[in-house]
């Protein structure tokens, strides 16, 4: 790149070149200039419709989502999404790291449900390695526990931000209050509040820390007191219902045609949940229900999220009971060619290390040192082929198409993110409605732009 390059120079194609009408730049508090301007256009203006660009920086668009709305008065006649503002090339980056390092990248995609990204990727890698049957029970139970905790934290954010966007700030504050409790549990178990990279091909990175099960039980008990607050605050609230009922309508045929899954699909009354229909990680051993609603609208999706948190609490309790009986069981496959060589503990310097392991490889066994070095720098090889093992994320079907050429790095990892697919339904949900309902419809889809753009 030459030094003469000026990123701030005006682009050769300026905005007015591509626009057929008059352009108004609105910076806030000056909407009346647009109204005045459109009125002044008279016959020159294109009737009385106006194209509004909303975003990508806007508090109500769930991150950097850009909406292009054609309005007639306050009615939306056409709506389109502009995405790509958060594209970071995670899939491309994964092709340049080992299979284990891939987890570190994909956990950052949908940042509100990191464990699901890790789980679907690891399940795909495990299928290619043909070790699906060898994953220890404790690792599977811990995966389920973490995923269900994650479902609660993700649904809480969905409800909280959805409430905030329609002005219900109390829903937002209590939503984030409870989410913080879940993140504390994540920090206790994985060491990190987000971006955990905890689920690894072959199992999970660490055993449960001491005292974690007690804290999980305390959390479940507390949530059973707190969740009714959401119901009391919202379920019959006339303003809340006035904003949500019959808004963002999408029926079953629309969902299937557009590939929409998750709470949006279940709000049509169809009990499709991969945890029940195509179980993974041993979900067939847990007792829970698939919650549905039959109104096809935003209110139904809100109620489903609320109900699903109760079901997740049921699964968490069962998983915690099982973990209590699995004290000291392995959390990683026995195959030392795949399993990471040490159980790390956080030292006084804040770095993860295992003194026992260091003593072993540095002082006792040259072969162990070689093995450690090879596994950490080179990684393991995965037999050639491709796999797709989707999981039911809080937003719907999340799947990783993992392709291996027999090497030490993914040949290709493509994520079918439910946010990306579901966002296509924004147009049909909001066209013909009021502009204020666009926000409600998008909030009911609950897209996470990190997952959309990857």
């Amino acid at each position, binding site marked *: 790149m030459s030094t003469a390059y000026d990123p701030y120079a005006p682009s050769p194609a300026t905005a007015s070149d591509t626009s057929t009408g008059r352009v108004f730049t609105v910076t806030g508090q000056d909407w009346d200039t647009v109204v005045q301007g459109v009125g002044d256009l008279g016959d020159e203006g294109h009737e009385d419709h106006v194209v509004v660009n909303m975003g990508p920086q806007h508090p109500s668009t769930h991150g950097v989502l850009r909406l292009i709305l054609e309005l007639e008065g306050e009615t939306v006649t056409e709506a389109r999404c502009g*995405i*790509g503002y958060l*594209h970071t*090339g995670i*899939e*491309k*980056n994964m*092709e*340049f*790291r080992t299979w284990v390092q891939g987890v570190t990248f994909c956990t950052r995609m949908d940042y509100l449900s990191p464990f699901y990204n890790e789980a679907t990727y690891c399940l795909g890698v495990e*299928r*290619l390695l*043909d070790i699906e049957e060898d994953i220890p029970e404790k690792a599977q139970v811990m995966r389920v526990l973490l995923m269900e905790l994650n479902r609660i934290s993700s649904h809480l954010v969905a409800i909280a931000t959805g409430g905030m966007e329609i002005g219900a700030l109390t829903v937002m504050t209590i939503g984030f209050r409870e989410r913080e409790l879940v993140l504390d549990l994540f920090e206790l178990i994985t060491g990190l509040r987000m971006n955990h990279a905890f689920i690894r091909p072959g199992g999970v990175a660490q055993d449960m820390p001491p005292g974690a099960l007690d804290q999980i039980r305390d959390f479940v008990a507390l949530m059973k007191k707190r969740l009714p607050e959401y119901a009391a605050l919202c379920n019959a609230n006339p303003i809340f219902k006035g904003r949500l009922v019959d808004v963002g309508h999408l029926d079953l045929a629309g969902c*299937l*045609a*557009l*590939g*929409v*899954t998750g709470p949006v699909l279940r709000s049509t009354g169809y009990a*499709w949940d991969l945890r029940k*229909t*195509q179980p993974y990680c041993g979900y067939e051993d847990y007792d829970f229900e698939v919650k549905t609603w039959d109104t096809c609208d935003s209110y139904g999706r809100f109620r489903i999220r609320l109900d699903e948190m109760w079901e997740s609490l049921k699964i968490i309790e069962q998983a915690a009971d099982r973990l209590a009986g699995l004290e000291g069981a392995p959390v990683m496959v026995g195959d030392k060619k795949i399993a990471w060589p040490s159980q790390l503990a956080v030292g006084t310097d804040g770095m993860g290390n295992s003194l026992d392991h260091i003593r072993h490889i540095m002082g006792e066994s040259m072969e162990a040192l070689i093995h450690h070095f090879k596994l950490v*720098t*080179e*990684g393991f090889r995965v037999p*050639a*082929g*491709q*796999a*797709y093992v*989707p999981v039911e994320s809080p937003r719907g*079907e999340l*799947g990783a*198409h993992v*392709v291996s*050429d*027999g*090497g*030490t*790095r993914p*040949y*290709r990892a*493509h994520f*079918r993110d439910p946010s*990306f*697919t579901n*966002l*296509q339904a924004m147009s049909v949900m909001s066209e013909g409605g009021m502009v204020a309902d666009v926000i409600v419809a998008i909030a009911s889809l609950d897209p996470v732009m990190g997952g959309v*753009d*990857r």
Partner: protein
Amino acid sequence: MSDDTGDKLPEEFPEVTPGTEPDATDVTPENQLPVSPEALRPEVVGERRGMFGVQGSGDTSGYGGLVKPVVMPGGAGRPYGGWFDEVADALEEALRGGGVEHALEKVVVHRGEITFFVRREDLASVARMLRDEERLRFELCSGVSGVHYPDDAGRELHAVYHLLSMTHNRRVRLEVTCPDADPHIPSVVATYPTADWHERETYDFFGVVFDGHPALTRIEMPDDWPGHPQRKDYPLGGIPVEYKGATVPPPDTRRSYS
């Protein structure tokens, strides 16, 4: 299989007893392979040279002369096992009914998943049959994923579709290939509207042109972006990072362990 293949068996399957000529038993239909040997051959998509990723510094490892083919799982013959045969039967019947009986190149069964390789000119009709046929009913398309095999001459670009039948609770994978020189694949948006953004994404990242797509534009990259970033010949980019006095090179220039 045509009649003239009976007397020249492929080299991969030599006679056990030397000097034995193929007799009438060998060429009877019962003893023929159920699919053409071409379809059963593992797919070689490239080759791997040397070990430890040593490049440009001479061969110090002694493994520099090593050449290994990169082989993807090959086609499978009947029976495929489980419900795969039901789906394959129903699909073949539908293909015959639709007059496109040669639409399937091969069928790969690997790790409990079934992949139908579809000729690209027949993709649109195959997709419609998979969705509408009562015994198939793959209502949901889980998306399109591109894969670039630069060394697989004439089949460089692959588009991979994951289909889900909620009626029968089954999943299949469709794979379509096209050469880099003619990167065109028919669009399935008319059958699966959800493929709209997925095809745009695959076009954006791989340059596969989906014919018949309503508005095939870039979706993730800026409109004026040059090149298609997920292709294997497109560099990852990156800058060296200094850490505690040492310099860590960008990831695409690090040792890759082939």
